[in-house]
């Protein structure tokens, strides 16, 4: 921290008081305008998407109203539609994914940046990024043929034997279900979080590390200080991963069992919003059916917004705490 009282990572505008700023040149005005216009473009696109989706869901909204959010039946033949099991499936599978992936990814990133020798770090980082290169469909296929049988035969039985009294581990473990879905999501979002956290950690100015070392900190203590500095960036990386998990379709729909039900057991099948849209959209004929699916898309938008907002609030509160200790 220097005498302007501003930390790295905060936007430029906070830097200097207005009256000591040099006048804005006209090129600056154009520059600011262009950048703002680009940003506005994304807002326009989202508004257009909401308009198109909103229009498509109107029929369903009129028909079911708010009850849609709490309905638990999904029966296209009878024309009864409810979104609750899908919301549940989306949220739970994404939470499982982030709970597994975030610490894992941050651990990998810390290892690569702070602890591994340079020659080792480069190839390993490369390998981790390759996980992001594998298409969704392939993850799904691998999950069916390798992951699910492995979990069913090796992991689930001891889990059920020891923790089967908890509602989370009841039921018949077939390998196809909520937990497997969350696990494959975790694998898919790990490279994303790792890559971004790596860049964040590398971007923390070397002065921070040097200052800590000069004060006699150990390597691990230095790392902690670096992490504290990069906290909000790391949180951003995790949100990136969370977003990916919420919207992931192909891999999840091949392994989660696609059963619209709310069940506490992690072994039971579940259903996510993205999966049901992918599964049924191309085949949906009939206006109400189509409209219900489009409304699911709208709900996904809203769920994503809410989850993102919650995550940000969480970061903000964590950020305040670390600021006090820094």
């Amino acid at each position: 921290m220097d005498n302007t009282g501003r930390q790295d990572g905060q936007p430029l505008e906070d830097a200097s008081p207005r009256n000591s700023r040099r006048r804005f040149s006209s090129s600056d005005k154009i520059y600011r305008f262009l950048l703002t216009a680009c940003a506005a473009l994304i807002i326009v696109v989202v508004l257009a998407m909401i308009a198109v989706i909103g229009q498509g869901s109107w029929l369903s909204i009129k028909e079911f109203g708010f009850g849609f959010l709490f309905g638990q039946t999904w029966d296209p033949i009878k024309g009864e539609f409810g979104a609750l099991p899908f919301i549940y499936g989306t949220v739970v599978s994404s939470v499982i994914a982030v709970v597994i992936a975030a610490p894992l990814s941050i651990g990998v990133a810390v290892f690569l940046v702070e602890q591994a020798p340079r020659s080792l770090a480069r190839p390993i980082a490369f390998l981790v990024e390759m996980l992001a290169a594998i298409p969704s469909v392939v993850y799904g296929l691998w999950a069916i043929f390798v992951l699910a049988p492995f979990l069913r035969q090796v992991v689930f039985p001891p889990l059920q034997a020891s923790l089967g009294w908890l509602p989370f581990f009841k039921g018949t473990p077939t390998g196809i279900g909520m937990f497997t879905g969350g696990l494959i999501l975790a694998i898919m979002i790990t490279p994303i979080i790792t890559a971004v956290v790596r860049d964040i950690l590398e971007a923390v100015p070397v002065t921070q590390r040097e200052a800590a070392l000069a004060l006699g900190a150990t390597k691990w203590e230095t790392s902690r200080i670096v992490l504290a500095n990069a906290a909000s960036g790391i949180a951003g990386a995790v949100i990136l991963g969370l977003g990916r998990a919420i919207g992931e379709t192909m891999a999840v729909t091949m392994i989660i069992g696609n059963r619209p039900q709310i069940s506490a057991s992690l072994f039971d099948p579940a259903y996510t919003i993205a999966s049901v849209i992918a599964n049924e959209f191309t085949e949906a004929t009939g206006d109400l059916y189509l409209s219900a699916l489009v409304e699911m898309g709208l709900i996904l938008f809203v769920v994503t917004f809410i989850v993102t907002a919650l995550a940000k609030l969480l970061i903000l509160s964590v950020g305040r705490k670390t600021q006090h200790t820094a």
Partner: protein
Amino acid sequence: MLSGRTKFALSFLCLVLLINPSCFSGRRGKGDAIKIQGAGSTFINPLMQKWVSEYGNLYSNVRIDYQSIGSGGGIKQIKERTIQFGASDAPMSDADLKSAPGEIIHIPVILGAVVLTYNLEGVDRPLRFSPDTIADIFLGKITRWDDERLLADNPGTSLPSEPLTVVHRSDGSGTSAIFTNYLSKTSPEWKEKVGEGTSPSFPVGLGGKGNEGVTGQVKQTPNTIGYVELAYALKNKMPVAEIKNRSGNYIVPGFATVTNAAAETINETPEHLRVSITDAAGENAYPISSYVYVLIYKDQPDEVVGQTLVDFLTWGINDGQRFGESLYYSPLPQEMVKRASAKIALISHDGRSLRTQ
């Protein structure tokens, strides 16, 4: 002096401005290749790829593309006129036909079968199922493999005392439509509780995505049973169940028995050829069979495209049938070839039939 970055950005900007769709058009007057788009049923995809390739070898200026996006997708896109022909396992409903911008004709081009496949240790002969047992399984009323109803269908076979898990389709599909159509015909309880359609709400079971999803899950998970198109079970060397038909015989799904089901129902087939041939009443008829339809507008706006489509379809229901067997499709019975031909003759441009042969 411009920095490397600036040069890069400027040349990039030029590139963006240059890539103008009208400079690079493939649609307007590009040689004399006739380009046709079709889409729909995933089930017919292997055969359709064979057909368009063979036909393209015969007539090198004809380029037909077929994408398997699902029967419902085929119906949707033909209604939007983004494709020139569609393919669907299940015929279009009256409501769908009404909402189309023009009259759409259904032309049956091949036959397929939905089969029951399962994963059960220690059983070496194909299992037998009666319609009631099948309904009870999928309704969730049979939960163990050694249930008395299963034992009754398979006297002399010892079945293990294991829990039975159902696998069904989670995505909308013609296969589900055919299967639930069969169940609705044979089980009043099913008809009332679930009904028939491309996306039924199954009372029990795991949902797999696509035929391959169900096949994969059944193959990998012990004690499961599911329904898939014949080719998937055979190609994956999985057991195929024998099903009791209306005449009381247990039938193995295959070319003869599926074509038989179609032949037996010819007389009940209405003029517009949209018919369900499940639960057919023949001695040798396989009860869960179905046509695959090509959907095409009766009135073709483009004469050349229309002519090509007519020729292609005529070739398909005649010469094209022989390519079906090695891919596990069943050929149309002769009588249906005649009727489909008559339908093709109705396709016209400006009121004039495009049929040349």
